């Protein structure tokens, strides 16, 4: 490397630092040349597709990950709730036909029992939640020991029984029986609507 004196370097540097003065004609010429160049129209999607380098701190990355996780869990939960509601709704619709004091298509069914010595006859079954207190299932004495009651029963398969004098459980002698050894008292079965109720 050549040995250049220090003072020469300072003189060159000061010369280079001196502001360059350009006349107005030069500026105009440059701007005219720029305006004459073909324009690039950037549409929004072009800008969005253009690759960029983004600098993110580790903390922001962690927060973004946490947010993403929260959103994913929320979405999963939301979908789960929707599916559970659908399942519950399906069961509830089916329930309407299979028991309890629930809404749903019903048909009139007459229950008849011949019990000459009875003082009270009720019908209990899954269509009234096995609750003997329902007045609409209390049979009326029609004379000659014949007790009868007509009730609106939801379509579907049901199990039921007569309760005589609040204590004696009697299966309907004219209906199909149900082998019910769970509680040791007889039940009968009825299929309202012929077992072809829509699901």
């Amino acid at each position, binding site marked *: 490397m050549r040995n250049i004196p220090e003072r020469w370097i300072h003189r060159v540097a000061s010369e280079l630092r001196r502001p360059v003065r350009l006349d107005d004609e030069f500026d105009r010429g440059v701007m005219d040349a720029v305006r004459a160049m073909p324009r690039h129209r950037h549409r929004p999607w072009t800008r969005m597709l253009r690759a960029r380098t983004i600098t993110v701190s580790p*903390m*922001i990355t962690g*927060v973004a990950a*946490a*947010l993403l*996780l*929260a*959103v994913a*869990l*929320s979405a999963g*939960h939301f979908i*789960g*709730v929707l599916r*559970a509601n659908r*399942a*519950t709704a*399906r*069961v509830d619709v*089916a*329930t309407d*036909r*299979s*028991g*309890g004091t629930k809404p749903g298509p019903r048909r009139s069914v007459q229950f008849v029992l011949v019990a000459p010595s009875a003082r009270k006859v009720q019908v*209990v079954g*899954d269509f009234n*939640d*096995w*609750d*003997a207190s329902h007045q609409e299932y209390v049979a009326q004495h029609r004379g000659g020991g014949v007790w009868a009651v007509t009730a609106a029963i939801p379509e*579907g*398969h049901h*199990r039921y029984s007569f309760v005589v004098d609040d204590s004696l*459980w009697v299966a309907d002698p*004219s209906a*199909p*029986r*149900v*082998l019910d050894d*769970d*509680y*040791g*008292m007889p*039940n009968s*079965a009825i*299929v309202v609507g*012929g*077992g*072809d*109720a*829509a*699901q």
Partner: protein
Amino acid sequence: MIRSTRATVVLVALSCLGQVAPWRGASGQHATDARLARLDSTTRRVVAAVVDSARKTRLPTEPLIDKALEGAQKGADGGRIVTAVRGLYTELRSARAALGTGAATEEINAGANAIHAGLPMRTLSQLRSVSQHAGRARVTLPLTVYTDLIARGVPAAVASDVVLSLARAGLRNGDYAMFQRNVRLDIENGADAATAAQTRARGAALHNAGRL
């Protein structure tokens, strides 16, 4: 400024996570059916757990509640009610497995009763396919007839054969009702249960085919 923005983001994220946890816990729980208040607290808890299991596996829950309520009405003790409800839960699962996922609630219910009476799952599946082949959509009535035959003393093997033969013959609802009534009357008049069922089944099939 930047610090406060970051702190806000962190707080929002934590609150989101905090809200998710209780939701997830709540989604797995259902309120106990109010009708089960007729049971004592221990029995109610066990029955509610069985009902919850049924709900999760999309089995009909109403038959289970009905079974518990029936026990309460009949004065059964808690242990007996729990045994009955658990047994029915198993039978409902078996019935649905045999009948297929498209089975109606009443079919599953009737199937569970039939399984309880002794109907093999294989026969239940067979009954489903035979009925579909014969153009009958539901098997609720044949299953009810099967259970009735068993309750009236017809041997399980004979009852299975009879119900399958009726299904193959494509009996209608009214035919099933008439068959059940005739068998009942025959037995009440002193006929052997198995003989009555077999004879009436042959008659019903011939009648349905227009040859009687």
